[in-house]
């Protein structure tokens, strides 16, 4: 599938970019970081205007995020549960539901570009948790614009090395997700909040 998406991006440019980033933001697992880096490379080759690409990627991502948020907000809990089961993890949405309010803007901002695998879940959880639409949209626009500018610029600078740069950032993203998960689970384990720690205390 990745090959087809990259081929569409190479051939059709900005319309393909808009569609791909939007479906990625809704929750379809697409390596959007690599696609943005390839877009930067295409901009360096003159196939697409750099600023136009950043704008299209930002608008497409925000549109997809808004759909995710709307599903969470207006679809109701049942639809959210069904959607999250369809994507393979119903438990995660429940946990993020509580986290959405406490993380607030920072959670929305950083999940747009730093821990992108969490982005679609944060959208759903923010909508379902009645997080302010205005604040969500504000942080969403900031995060997506920053992410699009960062990765497209990287692709522009390393335009002859996009696959390697994409692989590095893909791995770094998962390493950061691993650090966050380890920190969260470690905190639960060692602060006596998790089941294992409770058993130890008993």
């Amino acid at each position: 599938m990745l090959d087809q998406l990259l081929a569409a991006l190479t051939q059709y440019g900005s319309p393909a970019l808009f569609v791909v980033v939007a479906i990625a933001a809704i929750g379809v697992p697409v390596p959007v970081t690599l696609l943005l880096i390839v877009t930067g490379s295409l901009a360096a080759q003159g196939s697409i205007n750099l600023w136009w690409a950043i704008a299209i990627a930002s608008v497409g991502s925000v549109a997809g995020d808004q759909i995710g948020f709307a599903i969470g907000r207006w679809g109701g809990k049942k639809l959210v549960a069904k959607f999250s089961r369809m994507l393979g993890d119903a438990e995660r949405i429940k946990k993020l539901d509580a986290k959405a309010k406490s993380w607030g803007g920072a959670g929305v901002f950083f999940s747009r570009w730093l821990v992108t695998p969490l982005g679609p879940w944060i959208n759903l959880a923010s909508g379902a948790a009645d997080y302010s639409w205005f604040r969500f949209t504000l942080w969403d626009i900031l995060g997506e614009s920053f992410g699009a500018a960062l990765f497209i610029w990287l692709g522009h600078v390393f335009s002859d090395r996009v696959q390697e740069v994409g692989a590095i950032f893909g791995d770094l993203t998962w390493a950061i997700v691993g650090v966050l998960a380890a920190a969260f689970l470690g905190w639960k384990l060692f602060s006596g909040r998790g089941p294992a720690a409770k058993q130890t205390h008993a």
Partner: protein
Amino acid sequence: MILGFCLAIGATFFFGYRAGRTARHVRWQDEPIQSWMSVPYVAHTHHTRSELLFQAIHLPPNPRDRRPIREIARAEKLPVAELIRDLRKAIENANPPGSEGIPPSRKAP
């Protein structure tokens, strides 16, 4: 939860190590030619003129031809692997081993 904690630490080291390893080799490897790339794209990543590559696959030079290699292969009724092999050969001839790739703009007119 202990298992999850161990998995998270393992994943962090695995992906961190892989990112570091890729970063170390990034300057020494040629970008592999993929079927989604267009001919001008391949020319750019391998610092070669696109005209040379179009000629190598027996197509009229057209820098605006953004069709992916797989699309060209389908139109020309050729296997993708054959086109990639021809492109690779043309790149090797243009940039012999040991020579630095020269950006297209700095090549001879």
